[in-house]
Each structure stands twice: as structure tokens, then as C-alpha cells.
């Protein structure tokens, strides 16, 4: 509908209304629903699958909450998703002295919290103190612990923070991007011991005080979250412009992925991350829907089969389950690796939009990905040969037996509700069946599965995915033998195998080299060890796509996150 620059006066409005009423009868009449006219409002609509669990950025453990706090809060340093290098944010610069043991951050001046109070170095020191508080459960603490010791931070003046670490620690700049919280609001709560209950999802949104680009205006559980531009946001590109350029964002909570897809197709949301099977449809309809579909790259995570080699699961009443022997037998594991039909999984489960995964670090991580590993080719004959030569023969009935004569049979699990994983398991199961190995497949609800993996250790083989990190040391929980996510045998007191000891050593060495180029070989070697010893059998990595309204400017997603989201805006028509 026509709308002049100066708005519509009442008479024009009546004319337009009359014309619209007359036009309604005619075919092809186009009615703009005001609530869908996101461009005019400059409000970006998107959808997410689950409700946040907390608004407290320190306590966040799930992605849904992280999406919210990421908009409300900011950190000292941001990682640029294009270069994967740390860039100044609330800290405008930093100096490294004392051979990497002392880092001095110079903070931005005149930054205001959303309640108008000034942001100072005290807030940073307070945030670190909160993270190290043993009463506060949080996931930042392990990545900020060097040699078992916390980082000592002090504020010589309001705009300087000095951090001291026991030894040079290269990953620090990647770990220091945690959200800064306001000391003047939360310090009393921490002192009173009620910090873990503050800023939960029942807190009225106006009570949240942040430094981020947006304020939370409204939260309706299971329906939507409305964000409003923070008028005092610290970031400036040109002196007279206000950032972020959008006036707000609305995130609809849509649990069903099908519904989220239909909402995007209907224009109710402006951005969407399609599943592989939806990509072709969106590409075909891109013109008519006014959307752009873009390939953003290879997924950063890793999706793998893992065999449990935790003695706590197998040794019962003095007897050892023969499974432990199979799952620590390299020949058996090699046979398993050769039985994973990666190309089939790509074609069948990902509609061709995936690549075989060789290393546990994604090629998207250009610095730390080891490109020299040779994949285990899908070859069931070779797998059968490996099993035969290792003494796993087939009985007359076709069942495969181990050298002691036990039938080879194990359980395979993954989390319920993800069709691609169901299908990948069905394929693996089918290939092992042709080798005479019986696999019982039973997917489990996600929280039950996590409990089995981290607490009861009652599982044989699992297909599970981990998200990737730019800084490989942030995955130390998984790599280190003492880590609680060292899936195949977690929380070891001393490394169970020489190669696990070697990985621990490489992690220590890699973290103490300050030059990023010089660090890479340590992590390449870790990938080589994982590839050779096969505690995890990599499968495939999805090629990620995104789709967004073509009227959006400066919209650029990468696999590591959205590039400069504060510059996004709808084109003025």
C-alpha cells in the first residue's frame, strides 16, 4: 500500500481504506498485515525451539538461554567469526607482559549499564569472583582454570583490569569472552548466597541489567521473547549512528521444527536454519518468497560413534564382561571404522549436504584442523578380514564369536527424536549385521542418555554429537583423561593408556605456547592419536545453510556465529 514519506493524513487513509475495501473483492488484492511488516518496524523475527531456563548469564548451560543472555550482555573480548581471532569489545586493548603471565585490559570509558550506572573495572573483577565461587555452578570455571589455579584479577583504577596467571596460557583470550554482570545489582545476592536463584525466568524483564545490544522487553513462556534496542549500547561505528540498527528482535518459541519451517515459509519469521532436506525447497522458492538461501559452511561440531571402555561398567563382582576386551581391541575398532558407510549416510540422512568427517576438529577450524589424516574407507570385506585375522570368527550359524567363543553383541543408543541419528544407527546396525555382529538399538531420551554417559556409565556404544570450539583447549573436558566428558572412560585418576597420557601432555604443552601458528602442531598430533586409536569413530559433518529475507542488509552467518549482528537492518524501500 502507498504510504508517503510524511505519513498518511486522515482523508488519504479513508481513500485508501475505500480502495482497499473495493479491491478486496478483486483477485490478487494484496493485504499487508501490519504485524508481519517487519521491515517497517525494523524488528527481526526469528524462532527458537525451546524456552530459556535462566536469564543469569553465569549460570547458563543450554543454548536457548545462551541466545537470550548473548543479546543482553557483553564480554571484554569478542571472537570474530570470520577471522576466528579475538577482537576488542568492552576491553578496547590489552597488553601482555611478563612472558604471558600478566595481561592488562584497558576498558572502554563512558559505558553505561542499562539502568544508567557506569560500567567499571570492579564489574569485571566481581564477575570473575562469581565464576570462581564454589557455590555458583557454571561452565566457564574449567576453561578459566590454569594448572588448577584461578586467574588473579585486580582493578588498579576504574578502567584497568590486571590479570595474573601462574604460567603462560594461550587460550586465555578465547576464554575471557564471558558475559560481564553488574556488581551493583548482583553483589548483594552473591553475598547473601541467593545468586543461583537471581535472574531466573520468573524475574520481570525490566529488572535485568546488562551491557548488551538489546533489553528484554517481554517474555511469554512457550510463546515469544521481545527484545528492544538498548539506547545506550556502547558500540559505535560512526559517531552519529546508533547501534544496533534494528529497533528490536522478536524470537518466537516454536518447539516443532516443522512448524518453524512453515512459519518461515509464511513470512512470519525472517531468518531460518533449514534442515538438509528443506534446502532444495527453499532454493527453488527463493525468488517467490523473497528470501536468500546461503551455504555457510561445514558444521563445527563432530558426530561420532563411541565405544564404552570404562572398566567401571564391565567389571562386576570380579568378572569382566568380554565387551571390554573387544572395545579396547584396536583391530575390532578398525573393523568398526571400516563399517561406517559415510557416503551412504551423506546421501540418505543428509540429502547429500554433508562431508565425511575424518578428524574430530572440523575443517571449519582452519587453524587447528589437521588435514593430513587418511579416512577409514567403507569396506565391509576389509572389516571382515580384520576381524578374522584378530580371531573373531564366524560360527556355522553366521554369528561372529570372539576368540573366547562369546557371541559379539552390544547395545547401540543415541538420543530420541532426531531422525538423521536414527537412520545413521539403522545403517551402522545393518552393516554390522552382515558382519555377523548383533546390535540392539534403543534410543534414549536426551537427559537419560546424558545421565548414562556421565553418571552411571551404563552403555556400550553411542552415536552422539559435540559442538565445536575455535579454541581446541576449550574441548579439554573431552580430550583430557581426567575430563568429565572424556566419554569412553571419564574422570580417570591417572591416564589408562599411554596414548591418553600423551594427549594430556600435548594439551598442557599446546596451551603454554603463545603463538597461535606454533600451537597448531600440538593439536594436530592429538587428532592423529584419536584417529589412530579410535576411541571415537567419526561419521559425517553437515554442510550448514541459512535462509533469510532478501530485504535484510548486512546479514552474514558463519558456522561460528553471526558476523556483526549489530549492523543488520531491513532495507528502506
Amino acid at each position, binding site marked *: 500500500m502507498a504510504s508517503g514519506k510524511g505519513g498518511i493524513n486522515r482523508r488519504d487513509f479513508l481513500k485508501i481504506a475505500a480502495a482497499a475495501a473495493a479491491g478486496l473483492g478483486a483477485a490478487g488484492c494484496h493485504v499487508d498485515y501490519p504485524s508481519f511488516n517487519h521491515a517497517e518496524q525494523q524488528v527481526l523475527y526469528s524462532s527458537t525451539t525451546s524456552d530459556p531456563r535462566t536469564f543469569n548469564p553465569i549460570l547458563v548451560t543450554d543454548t536457548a538461554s545462551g541466545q537470550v543472555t548473548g543479546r543482553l550482555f557483553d564480554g571484554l573480548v569478542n571472537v570474530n567469526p570470520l577471522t576466528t581471532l579475538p577482537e576488542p569489545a568492552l576491553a578496547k586493548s590489552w597488553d601482555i607482559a611478563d612472558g604471558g603471565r600478566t595481561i592488562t585490559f584497558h576498558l572502554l570509558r563512558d559505558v553505561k549499564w542499562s539502568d544508567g550506572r557506569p560500567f567499571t573495572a570492579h564489574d569485571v573483577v566481581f564477575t570473575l569472583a562469581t565464576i570462581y565461587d564454589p557455590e555458583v555452578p557454571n561452565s566457564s570455571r574449567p576453561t578459566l582454570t590454569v594448572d588448577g589455579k584461578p586467574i588473579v584479577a585486580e582493578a588498579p583504577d576504574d578502567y584497568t583490569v590486571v590479570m595474573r596467571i601462574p604460567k603462560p596460557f594461550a587460550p586465555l583470550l578465547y576464554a575471557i569472552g564471558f558475559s560481564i554482570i553488574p556488581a551493583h545489582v548482583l553483589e548483594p545476592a552473591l553475598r547473601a548466597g541467593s545468586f543461583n536463584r537471581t535472574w531466573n525466568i520468573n524475574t520481570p524483564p525490566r529488572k535485568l541489567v546488562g551491557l548488551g545490544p538489546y533489553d528484554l522487553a517481554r517474555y511469554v513462556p512457550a510463546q515469544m521473547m521481545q527484545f528492544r534496542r538498548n539506547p545506550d549500547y556502547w558500540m559505535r561505528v560512526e559517531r552519529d549512528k546508533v547501534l544496533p540498527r534494528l529497533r528490536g528482535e522478536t524470537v518466537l518459541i516454536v518447539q516443532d521444527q516443522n512448524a518453524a519451517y512453515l512459519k518461515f515459509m509464511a513470512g512470519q519469521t525472517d531468518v531460518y536454519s533449514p534442515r538438509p532436506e528443506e534446502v532444495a525447497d527453499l532454493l527453488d522458492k527463493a525468488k517467490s518468497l523473497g528470501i536468500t538461501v546461503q551455504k555457510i559452511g561445514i558444521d563445527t561440531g563432530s558426530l561420532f560413534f563411541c565405544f564404552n571402555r570404562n572398566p567401571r561398567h564391565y567389571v562386576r563382582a570380579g568378572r569382566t564382561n568380554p565387551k571390554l576386551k573387544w572395545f579396547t581391541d584396536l583391530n575390532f575398532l578398525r573393523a568398526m571404522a571400516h563399517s561406517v558407510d559415510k557416503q*551412504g549416510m551423506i*546421501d540418505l540422512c543428509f540429502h547429500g549436504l554433508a562431508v565425511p568427517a575424518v578428524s574430530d576438529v572440523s575443517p571449519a577450524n582452519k587453524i587447528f584442523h589437521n588435514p593430513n589424516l587418511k579416512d577409514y574407507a567403507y569396506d565391509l570385506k576389509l572389516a571382515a578380514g580384520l576381524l578374522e585375522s584378530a580371531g573373531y570368527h564366524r560360527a556355522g550359524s553366521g554369528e561372529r564369536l570372539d576368540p573366547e567363543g562369546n557371541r559379539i553383541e552390544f547395545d547401540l*543408543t543415541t538420543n530420541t527424536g532426531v531422525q538423521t541419528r536414527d537412520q545413521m544407527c539403522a545403517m551402522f546396525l545393518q552393516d554390522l549385521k552382515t558382519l555377523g555382529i548383533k546390535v540392539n*538399538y534403543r534410543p534414549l531420551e536426551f537427559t537419560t542418555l546424558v545421565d548414562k554417559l556421565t553418571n552411571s556409565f551404563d552403555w556400550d556404544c553411542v552415536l552422539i554429537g559435540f559442538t565445536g570450539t575455535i579454541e581446541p583447549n576449550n574441548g579439554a573436558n573431552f580430550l583430557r583423561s581426567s575430563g568429565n566428558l572424556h566419554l569412553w572412560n571419564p574422570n580417570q585418576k591417572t591416564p589408562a593408556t599411554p596414548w591418553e597420557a600423551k594427549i594430556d601432555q600435548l594439551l598442557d604443552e599446546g596451551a603454554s605456547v603463545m603463538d597461535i601458528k606454533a600451537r597448531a602442531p600440538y593439536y594436530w598430533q592429538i587428532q592423529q592419536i584419536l584417529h589412530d586409536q579410535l576411541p571415537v569413530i567419526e561419521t559425517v559433518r553437515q554442510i550448514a545453510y541459512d535462509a533469510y529475507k532478501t530485504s535484510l542488509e548486512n546479514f552474514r552467518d558463519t558456522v561460528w556465529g553471526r558476523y556483526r549482528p549489530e549492523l543488520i537492518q531491513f532495507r528502506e524501500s
Partner: protein
Amino acid sequence: MSAAAPRTDIRLEAPPPERQASLGAKLRREWRLASWPVRLSTLCLAVFYILALGSPVIAPYNPTRQYRSLPDCPPMALHLAAPSEWRRGFFYAYPMRMTDAVRRTYAEERGVRTWVHLFSRGHIFTTAPGAPPYFLLGSDALGRDLFSRIVYGSRVSMFIGILGVAITFSLGITIGALSGYVGGLLDNLIMRWSEIEMSLPSFYFLLALAAIIPSGMSTVKTFFMIVAIMSFIGWAGFARVIRGMTASVRSVPYVEAARALGASRWRILRRHVIPSVMGYAIVAATLSIPGFILGESALSLLGLGIQEPAASWGNLLAQAEDVHALAHYPWILLPGVFIFLAVMSFNFLGDHLRDRLDPSHLR
């Protein structure tokens, strides 16, 4: 003994024996009495049970065999060969080739023919072992023959009802009749217990029970477990009705007459009480089979029933949950058609049986 001695004792004159019609004649009579939906339903069910019993012969392929180059392949057309080629086979199809992996579009390869052999290698129809497969109803996302999966899935879906009903009704009739006939404290105890059982929220109870099935169990055992669980929940309501009917039949004139004539308790139960309950039981059983079929579908849809790679109509239909799949591969809805037909058929048949057997409707 005088031949002309008058008979002084009064004997109960036995009625002349009913002319026993042969089974075939009876069935023919029933068929004539049935309306066309009932006839259709009977045929439908007969076909489904044949599918279930003859799965290995009727299904052309192993239901778990994955043709990995042919995911979501559409149903293929069957062509009749020219009479000159009948020595090789009567029917053939053109093999499909995927032309676009992202969009999953297929093209027929007109140059090649896949011969569909009838009655060969133990199947009604199949293709030669090395030859490309012939998908009558298309394939699923892993390239498995949907027709074979539906045929094997019918074993679960068609027998879960029968088995479940057998357990529910033997439990229900025994407990109900016992309760109604004996009465007193036992009656009271049984009825209160059944009330407790009926007040369990059945669906959540099922979910909880399905979650504790140990992981090493085979599909068949899991299947029996589910049937047992469902029956265990289902008997109470039925037993209450049977108990009520038994109690009321106890005092109707013809039972009292039989008792007055000195018939034994067992004879009364067998000749008068159970037959009067049986009509209801058969009708209720037929009408409750669809409940089991749908219950299994719901559980499988939620991932708690029959697990991959085994097939049941319910878990086959679970694939159709996806809007995208439904829009592009509509043949994955076919298992739903089978469920629909089976449930409708049982309902029609049940209604008809009620008309025929329920004493209050007898002409």
C-alpha cells in the same frame, strides 16, 4: 409287564434336535445377511491376515535390506511384456536412477528392464538377486522396500490386537464372572481393585512401563511386553461389565427355572450365564482390537514401541510426521491407509456382530 399300561409319570419332553446346518451353509447365510460394508471389511481383514501369515512369501524383499542408492524412491510402474517375451517373464519395470541427491528426484532408465518374476525363489513376486529392485509402493528414507515393510509390519499390527484381546478377555471374563457369580467380599475386593486400575492414567503408565524395558531385549520380546502391558491396563473395565451381566443373569426367570429344575451350578454357568455374556464379549472384543492397533501406533510414533529396524504400521507412519517428507514422498502415508482400513473394518465387523449376537437385538 403289560403292554397297555398307561404312563403315569410326567416326563419332560425333549425338544426335537435343531436341524444342524453345516458350517458352510451357516457362513453362506451370514454372508447373505451382511451389508456390503461388512462384506468389504471381512475381505479387508482376511487380506491383512493373509499378509501377516504369509509375509516371507508375499514380501518381495527382506524388509531391512537397504538399497542405499534409492532412498525415498517413488512407486514404480509395472509393465506387461509383449507376448513374444513371455518366456523371460510377464512383467517388467524400468529401474530408477537418482538424478538429484539433494532434491531426491528420480528418472526411469528406459534402456534397461528389471524383470519381475512371479512365484520364484519362494516369493510371489520378486526380482533376480543382483538386479535392481522393483518397489511396488516406493521406498523409505533408507531405500527399504515399503511394500515389504508394510507386509512384515502387518504381523505386529494385526496380531497385537488379537493377542491383546485374548489376554484382556480371558482375564476379564474369568475375573468378572467369578466376581459376579460368587459375590460378597470377593466381589467387593475385585471391583475396588479394578477401580484402582481404571483410574491409572493409561498413556503415561504405558510410557513409564515402556521406558523400563531392558535394552537387550529383542523386538519380538518387546512386542510381547507391550501387548502384556496394554492388556494389563485394559481388563478392568471389561471385567466390570461382565460382572454386572453375570450378577443380573443370576436372577432372570430362565436361570431360576433351570435352578428349580435342579440343574447343577456348572450347567447353569455353561448353558445360560456364559452364553448370555458371550455375545457382548465377542462384540466388545472386536471393537477393542482397533484400540490396540492405534495404541501400538501411538507408542511406535513416540519411539517407544517397535524399534528400528523392525517394522510396524505405527513406526512406518512415524516417518510421515515430517512436513517436508509428506509433501515430497506422499507414499510414506500408505501405512496410515492400512491402519485406517484395519480399524474401520474391525469397527464395521464389531457393529455387525452386535446386531447379530447381542441378545437384546435378537429377533
